[in-house]
């Protein structure tokens, strides 16, 4: 497959771009593979890629019921950060963030990773304490984050109102190497790299059943016929529960809608990513000029990629209060995705009751930033059959033992 470069574009331009190769091949599936990955979203494709790259497992099919990257990968707010609190979270999210730094070069596809800096506003004393705590933890975890004062916040983000009457900005948690990336490009780049390694990306091929026997996994039933495999990895975000049911067990997961929206494109006015957790809203500006905005999840199980409008109202209300100049800008498009929430809001990368069946799910609202790290850890789990230190803490049995990885340490207000 020919490499992408300015030179390639120039030479192809001479032939009116008639010479470009397909980004990925779309073959009909074989009957047997060493490994089948269900779900060609970012996490599934990354899993396949690192199976090939790190473990030299290349007889792999990634099967997708719709179009690759068409799920949450293509409908999130593209935030990349690793400033979490717990050791186990920081380990996987920071690996992930560092892989984003070199992803464009590794995959020879510009995923537009933009480490423009990310801040989480502290708007109550409680939040100040919480973020200082995280900064201290991060320093012991070797992660570069800091707590900055209101003046610095204003300097990094001039359009912010730091003296809001209701929730003045008391400071912020700042990760200078956090940022955003182009979500579609991430899926496309991994798919291209997988094809390059001879893997099969099979789109429009829904899984209708999972075949197993006492030995363990046998393969999957699909719209395009049965496919056998030695190992099966399920990486389907919102639909994990449905797949688990096919395999005959239940996951500690509930699927809910998460909404996002964009404004019309305007000239650059916001150079960093801002998250305001007291008021539930986060915002960044895309390279196209759209303000990309996200908020909280709906409160009930929902498999329709549509959420309830009052959540949009709450998010926009909060952001207009924090960024008064956006009041006269307009919402161009809103949409929803299905996210799978676990009991402790941390992901699952784990073996299952079925031998050689592995699940990677439960990324909730934070999946995009984790794509490379999640694929890395899942690939190791599938290749070795046992989790490495990255995946081990995220095993299913933690819920039985009460060993939670809880990032939502703000226990609510109390005096």
């Amino acid at each position, binding site marked *: 497959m020919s490499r992408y470069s300015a030179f390639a574009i120039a030479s192809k331009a001479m032939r009116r771009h008639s010479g470009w190769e397909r980004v990925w091949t779309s073959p009909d599936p074989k009957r047997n593979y060493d490994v089948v990955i269900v779900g060609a979203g970012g996490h599934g494709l990354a899993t396949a890629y690192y199976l090939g790259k790190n473990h030299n497992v290349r007889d792999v099919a990634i099967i997708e019921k719709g179009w690759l990257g068409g799920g949450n990968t293509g409908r999130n707010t593209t935030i990349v950060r690793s400033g979490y609190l717990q050791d186990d979270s920081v380990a996987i999210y920071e690996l992930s963030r560092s892989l984003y730094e070199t992803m*464009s070069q590794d995959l020879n*596809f510009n995923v537009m990773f933009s*480490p423009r800096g990310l801040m989480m506003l502290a708007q109550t004393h409680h939040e100040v304490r919480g973020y200082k705590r995280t900064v201290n933890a991060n320093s012991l975890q070797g992660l570069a984050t800091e707590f900055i004062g209101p003046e610095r916040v204003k300097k990094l983000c001039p*359009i912010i109102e730091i003296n809001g*009457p209701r929730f003045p900005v008391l400071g912020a948690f700042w990760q200078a190497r956090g940022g955003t990336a182009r979500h579609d490009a991430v899926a496309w*780049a991994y798919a291209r790299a997988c094809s390059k390694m001879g893997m099969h990306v099979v789109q429009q091929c829904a899984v209708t059943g999972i075949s197993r026997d006492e030995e363990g996994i046998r393969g999957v039933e699909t719209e395009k016929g049965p496919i056998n495999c030695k190992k099966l990895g399920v990486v389907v975000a919102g639909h994990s529960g449905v797949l688990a049911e096919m395999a005959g067990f239940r996951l500690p997961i509930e699927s809910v809608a998460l909404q996002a929206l964009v404004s019309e494109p305007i000239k650059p006015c916001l150079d960093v990513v801002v998250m305001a957790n007291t008021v539930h809203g986060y915002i960044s500006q895309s390279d196209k000029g759209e303000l990309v905005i996200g908020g909280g999840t709906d409160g009930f199980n929902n498999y329709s990629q549509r959420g309830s409008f009052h959540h949009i109202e709450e998010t926009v209300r909060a952001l207009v209060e924090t960024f008064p100049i956006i009041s*006269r800008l307009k919402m161009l498009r809103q949409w929803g995705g299905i996210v799978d929430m676990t009991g402790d809001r941390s992901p699952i990368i784990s073996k299952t009751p079925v031998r050689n069946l592995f699940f990677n799910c439960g990324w909730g609202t934070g999946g995009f930033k984790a794509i490379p790290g999640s694929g890395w850890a899942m690939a190791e789990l599938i290749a070795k059959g046992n989790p490495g230190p990255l995946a081990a803490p995220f095993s299913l049995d933690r819920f039985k033992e*009460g*060993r939670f990885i809880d990032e939502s340490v703000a226990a609510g207000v109390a005096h």
Partner: protein
Amino acid sequence: MSKRLSEGGRLIDRERTLRFAFDGKPYSGFYGDTLASALMANGQKIIGRSFKFHRPRGLVASGPEEPNALVSLGEGPRREPNQVATTAELFEGLVAESQNCWPSLDFDVGALSDRFSRFLPAGFYYKTFISPKNGWYRLFEPAIRRMAGLGKPPELPDPDCYEHFYAHADILVVGGGIAGLTAARIAAASGARVLVVEQRPNWGGRSVVDNVRVDGAAASEWVRSAVEELEGFGAAMRLKTTALGAYSHGYVLACERLSDGSNRKGGLRQRLWRIRARKIIVAAGAIERPLVCPGNDIPGVMLASAIRDYLTDYGVAAGREIVIATNNDDSYRTALALSDAGIEVPAIIDTRPSASGELPGLARERGLRVIESSGVAKIFGKRQVRGVAACSMGGSGEISEKINCDAIALSGGWSPTVHLWSHSGGKLRWDDHWVAFKPDPDFPPLGDDGIAVAYAAGAANGELLCRNIAADAEMASKRALADMGIDAVPVESPAVESGVENEAPIEPAWLVPNNMSCADRARSWIDYQNDVKVSDIDLAALEGYESVEHAKRYTTLGMATDQGKLSNVNGLAILASDLGTAIPDVGTTTFRPPYIPVAFGAIVGEAAGNLFKPVRKTPIHSWHDDNGAIWEPVGDWRRPFCYLRFDETERNAVNREVLGTRQGVGLLDASTLGKILVSGPDAGRLLDMVYTGVMSSLPLGKCKYGLMCNENGFLMDDGVVARIDEQTFLCHTTTGGADRIHAWMEEWLQTEWWEWRAHVHNLTEQYAQICVAGPKARELLEKVGGMDLSKASFPFMGWRDGRIGEFNVRVFRISFSGELSFELAVRAREGLALWETLMDAGKEFGALPYGTECLHVMRAEKGFIMIGDETDGTVTPQDLGLHWAISKKKFDFIGKRALERSYLNGSNRWRLVGLELPRFKSKEQLEDGAYLYETSAVNEHGHAKMIGRVTSTYYSPTLERPIAMALVESGPDRFGEFITINSKDEGKAIVAKIVEPVFLDSEGKRQNA
């Protein structure tokens, strides 16, 4: 050159001239004009620049679907980018500026990129700017960001206000054309509650423009009477109100425009309607598509229907000589209207082998020249149309003849406006006859009852022949009524005539000409705003971006501010032909709300400034405000953090409050604490389940401290419980816990133990509660007098009802400060008076008010835990050494089973200790949230091994040294050990000694005094 004709223009009032400015140049228009019609009347061809190549852009459409004529409208705080000129009503003094061009609209440096367009195909940025690492972020991205975006963001806060409004209706009709009004008429006459919304400032839709005749009279006549009739039936009729989106269960958002851009009156600017309808009738009409032909983006190329609108509505001609290029009969109406107005129509280029319908016939009768089976080889002109070259439709663009003209009307057929149908899940079906996607009646959006919630009518339903529209609307309305169980009363549907019996069918013409050359494919636009050309779709298909979602995202087709209203179907068709599949097999992208962009301000509604969020205030709030309180938000409450005197710092104020209380007496407004009354024969049984300790055995008149866990075993709240009588308990909760714990108890009673006989009342706001603490507390209260507060008759952890001064109070002898302390509960309306009485009486004892921070310091000195500081949702009572508050005898309580799990009983749990700290040079106390770690070890991730964290840290003015509480791995077994704390702002590690978490009066002399 476009110009205003001497007569005509049904919407303008030539008596009322309005002055306005565009890019600094003064112009004038008429009342009733849109900015677009006024600019056109003034001959302004170029109004904007395209997004990617900064090509000159002129008007294409006449409605909200306009992709090109976006301007920045207004001045100062009211300046608003990306306003669509075609929907912006003209007003006196309007100021508009062009966007996305520099230095000027006429000469835009950005347009250079157009020269290199060949090197900037779809998605070029994915293939380049790849290295070096950081190259994208540091070099390329900033440049691209500057080139991208459209208007400049506002610089000032929005001075206007907005509001929301909840409306309910049996039937919501979207669209006030013949279809909408007909459907509404039947529904209203049948007794249904009807709400009709129309986005334009006037009723009637296209029928009025196309001088259709209804029941023998001009459409406008019928429209007027129909609207009157509807109002007579009590139907709510709303103009300038755009339905934005349909959500589940018949919930529809609509935005009403209440003032023009000037908003001189300073009233509401917009009102966001939240409509709950049992049924929705979508009669939103249809939108015309341009033809895809070489040079079709040059200013002067417009939609045929738009040219007709400007002519009829505003008396403006798009040019002197206007050529029509079409694949259908409808566009001949434009030709006829133009020639009636005396405007030259040199030719009608028709892609069909034979244009033999009635309308072409009428055109020929007028002597207009129709060139059949022809396409457009080329459109001449750069900054505006100078002419057009025709070619054979079947060929690849060899010029057959050149025709001079200064405007071109394109028509590629119509697309039904199906957005609202699709938003809430309605499916679409491809219609070969009209060459368009239309609502599939077999798969409508469903309501909560599982039957159709929306019905499409008229053009929106793909019924594009106007004489059938009324019948179609009647059917939709009757179906909706029937599904609601309402019998439709017979209402005479209007007879609609378009002047012709038949229209010859449209014929698909996706590429004009059919076998367009490669060069032409790169000059034929599909998405005007985002500069998506045929060649871009070709490239996407070639590279394997085959799904419509991939192609859309790769080329940005349909992602402009018009969301593909003009471009999507053309793009799909060309993608389909590239892939050799049928259009319906390619499918459409998902329609997402809103139908047109809506201001964030409207979404916020009234909830800005003071109404952004409620602030909860205690009955004593005003006193705090008058006495120097620094407020701390606690949930929605405001509580005094401390009270500043003169120019003292917060730190000094807190120290003063602590010492003042410890040495004399201090008053705290504790009104925000939860007060939950639990009564009934099973009240004790309930509390024994909710609390970790035993409450049922609490003696009358006594208080007891209690802990609550969630079912997961983690601490969720704490507080003092008082036994009021045999069957009644009063439970105090944290401020944040009041509503949560009340709901929590109700939940268990209603959903798990519903046979238990107990009732829960949340009395939090019935009482103001005042804490009087300090060695002189008793003296103060005795001075006010009214009840016996002596130690003997009123010991620690008791409560009494009685009088203090003039007030009926309930006094609790409890202490969160470690001092001798009384908490007085009084009915809320008397709270302020009691507070003032006590402050007054307290003068001689140096009584002072203290805030939450002083409260924190005092409780920490005493080693009391604080929910939210020592706990964070992952901490058990055992972790905090609170075993004494957990009953061993009880078989069950909420959280008990969870606490038996292996991990929660591990020996290496982090448990509560105190820290003896060195004095700091830099400041008085250790920073918040510091971690304790082993200097030698690392964990499996290579991080320093953390073995604990600081949960509370304060400067103790009482002890004159910093104090801290911490959770440390098996801490209580390590008293006396030294441990290392990382401190970012000390810049170095700190060594502290692990001690008991009680720093003051461990035997409790003070509180028992």
